[in-house]
């Protein structure tokens, strides 16, 4: 049931701007833990048979758990999903782009109703436990995944070494196995060309900045994903705390810039936001890049109170609903780029002016 509604609806939990803190700048927060089963080869060396054992063990650990959030996770394996449906899950940030490529019966996803808790099975590691929430709330994400982790560990024996920590397929994740990230919308800093300078320095703090869909994706619509890079030698709390400190500073800086833009360049700002609104509400053909750029402007208008009849949540939803798989799912057919551009213009109007 859970999976079906996640496939057909364009809305998932993290999009709900009214349900999280600091949503004027922070779109969503996420924490994921990489975990592996003791002595079992990592997923890239697994065959169907051993892979199936891993998935069965994890599913069993969930279904027999006394912890309701773990027991209520719904499972699906990738042989049961079309490529389009896997893309849908990827566009909603519930599985990674890499994971979406596979159609094996021993790879899959366990996920709750609103997508706030999930476990990818046999991605790069046997388990990737994820907490994904609206706004800036790393602590809550961390609490959620640690609880799931503790409950799973009652039954599963993890690959853990006293010296190296949680052992992972890739040495870049070993130790805590933790990746914490915050999706930020920084139109003010981008307009005033401050993002490069800041992100340059972030590398020195053991953190990194990526685009909407993580590793190797470009930055579109002024959406930036800030995450920790170092996983070994820091505690989970330290990782979250460090990222929280840096994020808080960026959020404050973005607000300051927006404030001064509003004071010093009120007409230009209104013009820009008005134009974005006009194009989005009247365009008949629109590319993904153009749409994201305009949605970023519109979102700024909503956050500054210049546009009052559109909800931030609707714009969050659109970031995902205008992606290729979501457009095709909605249309119920495969579409080429041109057809998608037409459909995209239609979907934007639908969601923006939905009653």
């Amino acid at each position: 049931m859970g999976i079906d509604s996640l496939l057909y609806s364009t809305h998932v939990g993290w999009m709900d701007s009214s349900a999280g803190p600091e949503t004027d700048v922070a779109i969503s927060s996420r924490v994921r833990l990489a975990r592996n089963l003791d002595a079992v080869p990592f997923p890239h060396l697994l065959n169907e048979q051993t892979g199936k054992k891993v998935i069965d063990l994890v599913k069993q650990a969930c279904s027999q758990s006394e912890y309701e959030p773990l027991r209520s996770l719904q499972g699906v394996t990738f042989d049961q999903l079309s490529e389009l449906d896997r893309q849908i899950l990827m566009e909603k940030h519930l599985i990674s782009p890499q994971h979406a490529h596979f159609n094996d019966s021993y790879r899959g996803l366990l996920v709750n109703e609103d997508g706030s808790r999930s476990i990818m099975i046999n991605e790069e590691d046997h388990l990737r436990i994820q907490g994904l929430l609206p706004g800036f709330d790393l602590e809550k994400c961390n609490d959620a995944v640690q609880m799931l982790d503790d409950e799973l560990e009652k039954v599963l024996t993890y690959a853990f070494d006293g010296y190296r920590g949680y052992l992972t397929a890739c040495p870049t994740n070993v130790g805590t196995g933790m990746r914490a990230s915050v999706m930020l919308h920084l139109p003010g800093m981008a307009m005033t060309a401050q993002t490069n300078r800041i992100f340059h320095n972030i590398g020195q703090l053991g953190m990194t900045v990526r685009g909407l869909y993580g590793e190797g994706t470009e930055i579109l619509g002024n959406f930036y994903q800030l995450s920790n890079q170092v996983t070994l030698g820091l505690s989970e709390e330290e990782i979250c705390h460090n990222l929280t400190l840096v994020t808080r500073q960026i959020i404050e800086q973005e607000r300051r810039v927006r404030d001064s833009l509003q004071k010093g360049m009120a007409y230009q700002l209104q013009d820009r936001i008005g134009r974005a609104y006009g194009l989005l509400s009247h365009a008949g053909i629109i590319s993904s890049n153009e749409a994201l750029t305009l949605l970023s402007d519109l979102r700024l208008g909503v956050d500054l109170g210049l546009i009052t009849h559109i909800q931030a949540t609707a714009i969050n939803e659109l970031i995902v609903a205008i992606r290729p798989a979501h457009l095709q799912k909605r249309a119920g057919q495969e579409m080429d780029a041109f057809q998608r551009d037409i459909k995209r213009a239609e979907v934007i109007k639908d969601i923006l002016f939905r009653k």
Partner: protein
Amino acid sequence: MQCDECKQKPATVHLTEMYNGQKSEMHLCPSCAAKKGALMFDPNQFNIPNLLGGFLGGNQALQGAGLANPTTQATCQNCGVRFMDIRNTGKLGCPNCYQAFEDELESALKRIHGNSQHTGKIPLRSGEKTRIKRQVEDLKEQLQSAILAEDYEKAAEIRDALKEIEKKLD
């Protein structure tokens, strides 16, 4: 993100360098990256496994100079993966590989994370031993500073506590 060099084209090549725990990053477009000589090969080959291979000593220049590490032939008994495979794929074969290639990984981990020892969470059920070991280490440190501070009363207390805990380890 714009290219740090030409400030025009989008940066798609992100270089992170870790030296003595100090990290520096560079963001370049493919053509500037090629000019800078950051890529000694085709940009299409510039992916994570190759980068990691570099961390793990898979530097082609070194190999060319006849300095290839002889341990590349070492094999993990549990999964049969060779260190050479890890260099090529950037991925270990199984959890036991961390033991099998402990020495090779030590310096790579330091380069990646600036650290090589885990200080975070310990599994609740199976981590009992690790938890005790960490307590022992903490107490030893406290003992050392108590002795340095010439607080012998406290040192004696810590020593007794240490003995108590170390019993649990046997």
